[in-house]
């Protein structure tokens, strides 16, 4: 079963993609697609495919970001939403676009840059060697502050917040470029990641550049987070939940070996949540992040209640 686990997940993602292509406020029949009906194809290419791609990529990035952040911080309770980096980059991006509206076409790239800036600022300011739960609380305070600022600015200035429904191909391309850039950063420090199983003290004595590795990971994660937040908005707790789902499915695997399952679980959950959001009350569309929070919120609570290995350490 473990052997086919990855392929089953990948298969489920593919099936979800096909379903997401066909269902919606206008249901398309598979026959229409196969017969090459122009209307059906136009709907798929112009509206559904970019949206689906963004959901699949973003879900994977959220999962992998959470996993990597947990590895380098040695804290299994954090992700980018919990640390406030999602809310922070959303606010910063909004501020930049209000000041320079002509940048709107490059919102994903600018989002990525704000993500990096926020991540750098967060880790320069936050005190070192925090107890796991203290870091979480500090992060939630940051997130709530930026959330409030975003609300005030959004209501006050009438700036719309990003949703998946407005995604176009240019944004998909920007997101793909950001994804590749992040991967390049990670490839450079990949061999060092296995040492994070040890305490910092031991890593230093082994002569491994822990700080450099941590910063490369944080830069990649910041870039991804900013970019995807500019498209899908805030998805709370998902980045912390996805690695936990992967660990639950294969308890003896090290984090580095959980990258693929975590990415696939992310794509699967985000894509299907989005499909549900746009079909269940069609033509009215529900916010995807709310659908996800209904799932991820209780799961995160369960993780804290259960405590288990990760919360205690």
């Amino acid at each position, binding site marked *: 079963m473990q052997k086919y686990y990855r392929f089953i997940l990948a298969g489920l993602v593919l099936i979800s993609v096909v379903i997401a292509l066909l269902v919606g406020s206008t249901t398309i029949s598979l026959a229409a697609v196969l017969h090459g009906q122009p209307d059906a194809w136009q709907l798929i290419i112009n509206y559904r495919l970019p949206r689906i791609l963004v959901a699949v990529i973003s879900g994977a990035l959220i999962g992998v970001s959470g996993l990597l952040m947990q*590895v380098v911080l*040695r804290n299994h309770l954090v992700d980018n939403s919990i640390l406030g980096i999602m809310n922070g980059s959303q606010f910063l991006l909004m501020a930049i676009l209000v000041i320079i509206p002509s940048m709107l076409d490059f919102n994903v790239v600018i989002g990525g840059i704000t993500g990096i800036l926020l991540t750098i600022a967060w880790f320069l300011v936050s005190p070192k060697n925090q107890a796991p739960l203290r870091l979480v609380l500090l992060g939630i305070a940051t997130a709530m502050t930026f959330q409030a600022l975003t609300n005030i600015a959004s209501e006050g200035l009438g700036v719309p917040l990003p949703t998946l429904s407005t995604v176009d191909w240019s944004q998909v391309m920007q997101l793909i470029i950001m994804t590749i850039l992040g991967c390049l950063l990670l490839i450079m420090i990949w061999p060092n990641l*296995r*040492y*994070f*199983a*040890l*305490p910092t*003290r*031991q890593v*230093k*004595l*082994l002569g491994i550049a822990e700080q450099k590795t941590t910063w490369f990971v944080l830069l990649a994660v910041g870039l991804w987070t900013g970019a995807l937040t500019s498209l899908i908005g805030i998805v709370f707790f998902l980045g912390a939940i996805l690695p936990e789902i992967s660990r639950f499915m294969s*308890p*003896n*695997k*090290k*984090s580095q070996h959980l990258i693929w399952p975590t990415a696939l679980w992310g794509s699967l959950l985000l894509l299907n949540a989005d499909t549900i959001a746009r079909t269940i009350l069609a033509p009215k569309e529900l916010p995807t992040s709310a659908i996800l929070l209904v799932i991820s919120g209780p799961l995160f609570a369960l993780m804290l209640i259960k405590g288990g290995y990760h919360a205690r*350490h």
Partner: protein
Amino acid sequence: MLDINHLSFNRDNHQLFHDLSVQLPDHQITALIGPNGVGKSTLIQLLTGELLPTSGTIKNRPKRIALLSQHNQLFEPLTVRELLALANDTLDPAVMQTLQLDALLDKEMTTLSGGQQQLAWLGFVLQQQPDLLILDEPTTFLDLHFQELFLKTLQQLQQERQTTVLMVLHDLNQAFRYSQNIWLLQQTGNLISAPATQMHHQVDLLSDAFKTPLQLIKSADQVILQPK
């Protein structure tokens, strides 16, 4: 030879060490003893370079320093083999044999007893082929069986490899039995270095340092220190 020269260290306006000069004997086991809170762990952090002295120098610091503490945390579910490979990809057969780790290699660390885990960690530090091995209360959480097994194995491997070892121990009798030299760190921040055989008889000095009246008891072939 690790050479501490006129070392002073202050923390929070409190002077832990003042003008401390001492040399660590090469290729021998030195036991660092002293009451709680006197700065043993701080001295170790100064030796490894994790902390920098307020003044003074530490010279001839060896390139490869390995460290083992009383409690070693892992952040991933590693097997013994995976842990050892982090220190060195090629497993040292002599270490595996002496520590009897062969049978445990593919077991996960968390499934082992505390004593077995500590032996695996000893394997981890020895795999690094250190020039200086520092052990910070390595036997504190072990039962009597594993305390003796750990120290005997360490002694055996140290003799074979001639590694320089500095080891913090709380049990004075273990310190005297398993080391050639004693570093006694006093409440005043003073450090007295002497061969174990000499220090053993300084009952007044030791009683004073630990604020506990001690006496030497001679049994068959051993001399044991005990509280009066």
